[in-house]
């Protein structure tokens, strides 16, 4: 008596993006479907349609043969759908039981919440998972992994028929992942329809039976997990190899004199960092998220207090005090999180570009030279081929890749000597990525020293002349482009080499 889910020709549009295009899929119960695809392939749109966050613009979908039209998440929940997000949808100030029963707290006749029943049932679910979680502690006191389990418990408590996981292991350790997998297998045995969105190939091969590949909002293929290789999946996901782009940009670049030298830099988050950077060089920083890569750059940009160490910039001692100071000497930084640190959503493309050089745009009346501002905006819109009808358009109305180009333009107009890019291609599609790689290499050709922080190893390997690997706030290794492989970078990033010696 299994249930099933069927998507028929689903379409979803956003301004400038065809997020899902004629997507069709039939999924049966008792099977774990891995859903893979590049960023922007349409995975999260699919999940959001499933949980009632988005209404598809066309197409239909069915649960057990009954057509569904969710207009809000509560309708999806009552139809038996639970989507468990990477960003946990739990209330930290509430107890485990209150979260497990979130929005559906059992009450007695007088309307008083029945805590006894709630705690008892929560405990039973926890036990069935083999977890030792007390139902009456506040969720904020639990580890991230256990918080995630509370989410799963919530889905089980709702008796969901369809459970989707969005990158569930992103913040879990090996042991915690195993517990999660055990629970997923249990749900599978209970004949649930399970979707598992992930970037991690090794996990997919452990947990999934079918692999669904999405690309540019389209269904590309569904394969049996046993019969498919990682290489084939990647080929299906990417569609065209990025290798040729990298080869093309590597040709003919002259590396000049040293412009930045960092000696034994120590802050509250990193220690003893030393490296040098030359004009025209692209230097990569790899390492796990939270390893301290970003913090090094924040110190260089005057955002973090430096405890000890020395920085020589352009032949002189440089003590960064504020971002204003850093910009003045010629350092630019494109921050990691475009949404919260980069764009000013309610402001025009032009205003977003010129914010970094407003002082230089003042005329003799101390007001902003609007014509010159427009010329600069237009120049950059053309140079970086930013897709926007005009410079007046609000940046929030552009696609992610184009927004990122605007932020890059904001920094290029300062004519930096050192350009720091923190996760420059995060969350943008493959086509825009290739464009970014060309722009970055163009910057290096124009004698800018470029630092690229990235979690995507093929990107650092393909793009950078040298790669410095950070682990636990220190440099754990350095590799040249010629000798760089994903394996040796990961080894430096993850394994404590001192200990193994």
């Amino acid at each position, binding site marked *: 008596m299994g249930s099933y889910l069927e998507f028929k020709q689903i379409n979803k*549009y*956003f*301004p*400038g*993006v*065809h997020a899902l295009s004629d997507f069709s899929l039939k999924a049966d119960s008792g099977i774990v479907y891995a859903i893979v695809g590049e960023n922007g392939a349409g995975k999260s749109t699919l999940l959001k349609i499933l949980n009632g966050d988005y209404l598809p*613009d066309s197409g239909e979908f069915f649960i057990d043969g009954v057509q569904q039209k969710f207009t809000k998440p509560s309708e999806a929940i009552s139809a038996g759908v639970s989507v468990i997000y990477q960003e946990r949808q739990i209330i930290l100030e509430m107890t485990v039981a209150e979260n497990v029963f979130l929005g559906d707290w059992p009450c007695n006749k007088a309307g008083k919440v029945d805590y006894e029943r709630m705690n008892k049932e929560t405990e039973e679910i926890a036990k069935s998972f083999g977890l030792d979680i007390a139902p009456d502690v506040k969720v904020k006191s639990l580890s991230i992994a256990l918080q995630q389990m509370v989410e799963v418990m919530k889905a089980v408590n709702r008796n969901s028929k369809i459970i989707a996981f969005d990158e569930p292991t992103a913040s879990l350790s090996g042991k915690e992942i195993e517990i999660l997998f055990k629970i997923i297998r249990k749900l599978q045995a209970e004949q649930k329809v399970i979707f598992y969105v992930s970037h991690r190939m090794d996990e997919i091969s452990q947990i999934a039976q079918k692999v669904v590949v999405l690309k540019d909002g389209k269904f590309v293929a569904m394969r049996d997990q046993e019969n498919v290789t990682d290489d084939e999946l990647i080929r299906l996901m990417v569609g065209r190899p990025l290798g040729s782009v990298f080869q093309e940009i590597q040709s003919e670049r002259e590396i000049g004199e040293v412009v930045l030298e960092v000696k034994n830099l120590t802050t509250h988050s990193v220690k003893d960092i030393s490296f040098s950077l030359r004009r025209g060089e692209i230097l990569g920083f790899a390492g796990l998220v939270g390893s301290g890569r970003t913090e090094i750059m924040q110190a260089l*940009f005057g*955002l973090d207090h430096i405890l000890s160490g020395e920085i020589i910039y352009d032949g002189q001692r440089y003590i960064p005090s*504020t*971002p*204003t100071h*850093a*910009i*003045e000497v010629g350092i630019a*930084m494109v*921050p990691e999180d475009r949404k*919260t*640190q*980069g*764009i*000013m*959503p*309610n*402001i025009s493309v032009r*205003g977003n570009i010129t*914010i*970094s050089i*407003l*002082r230089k745009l*003042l005329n003799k009346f*101390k*007001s*902003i030279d*609007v014509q010159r501002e427009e010329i600069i905006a237009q120049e950059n819109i053309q140079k970086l081929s930013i897709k926007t009808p005009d410079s*007046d358009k609000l940046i929030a*109305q552009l696609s992610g890749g184009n927004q990122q180009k605007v932020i890059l333009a*904001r920094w290029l107009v300062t004519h930096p000597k050192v350009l720091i890019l923190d996760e420059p291609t995060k969350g943008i599609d493959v086509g825009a990525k290739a464009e970014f790689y060309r722009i970055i290499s163009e910057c290096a050709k124009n004698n800018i020293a470029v630092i690229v922080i990235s979690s995507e190893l093929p990107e650092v390997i393909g793009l950078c002349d040298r790669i410095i690997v950070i682990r636990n706030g220190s440099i754990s290794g350095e590799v040249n482009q010629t000798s760089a492989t994903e394996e040796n970078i990961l080894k430096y990033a993850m394994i404590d080499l001192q200990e193994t010696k």
Partner: protein
Amino acid sequence: MVLSTWKNKIKKSDFADKISLIIALIVLVAFFSFFNKNYFSSRNFINILVACSLMGFVAIGETKLIIANLIDLSAGSVAAFATVFSAILVRAGVNPYLSLLLAIGSGCFVGLLNAMLINYLKLQPFIATLAMMSIARGAAYIICGGRAVPIANATFISFGTYRLFRVLPLPVILLILTFLVGGYILKNTFFGRSVYALGGNSYAARLSGLNPEMITLKLYLLSGGLAGFAGALLAARMNSGQPTAAVGLEFDAITAAVLGGAAFTGGVGTILGTFIGMLILQGFNTGLIMLNVQIFWQNVAQGSLLIVALAFDYLRKKERNKKLLTDSMKSING
């Protein structure tokens, strides 16, 4: 070609942006003029502007604060304090011009405190200025012992009552000048841009080399100073300093700013919008009075006006987004 560039210019001008507000204002004037012939007269329009003057100065400060994602709830109390403070100074024989400056200075001082609470104690702007609202109002009562302070100095009184060419009252001239200067600063200067950037994304503003703390400080100095100025002019108009004056003034000012298109999400708003918003608000109130509508209804009307305006704004935005989507669907599929 020339025609089309002109069309473009008009399309992109600030007035075009505010077209629905301007139409609303025209409809409002037509409506009240229809029911009361006296409404449509220069004398009444000047009266409306005089009635605006107190709220208008404060609204300029609030507009900039709202754009920067900040707020000042203490403005009304500061104005009240300034009425009493300037009255006391004038009565003690201080030069009337100096008294006016000191009243502005007292407002700036409260602004400085507001900014320090926000910048250093990291208080929410709402909370910090709520506290200062209470303190400034209390101080206004304390320095006068709770009693109104009469003003006899003719020069000081003339600040509120002098009429240029016997027609245009000084507060109205000052108000319009302040709106022009305030609008110019916001639209064209480095500081104005920083205000939009701070409200648009404070972190991005900081990364771009701006100094959010400094912008915040300047904004509160400005808001406090304007409230102090408005208070002193009010004292001149009333011939006295009154600790009970200007209760809820900041909310009227915020209403005008929001009517004029300033958004509480930050980064959006214009001084021109606030000016029109203020005229609509006061024009409406004056109209209701002239139609002999009971005074309590004014409060109901003011709230309703705000809701109608924002509902209209929401629907317009929704329509615009829908159009944007269909356009992009066409461009993708076509």
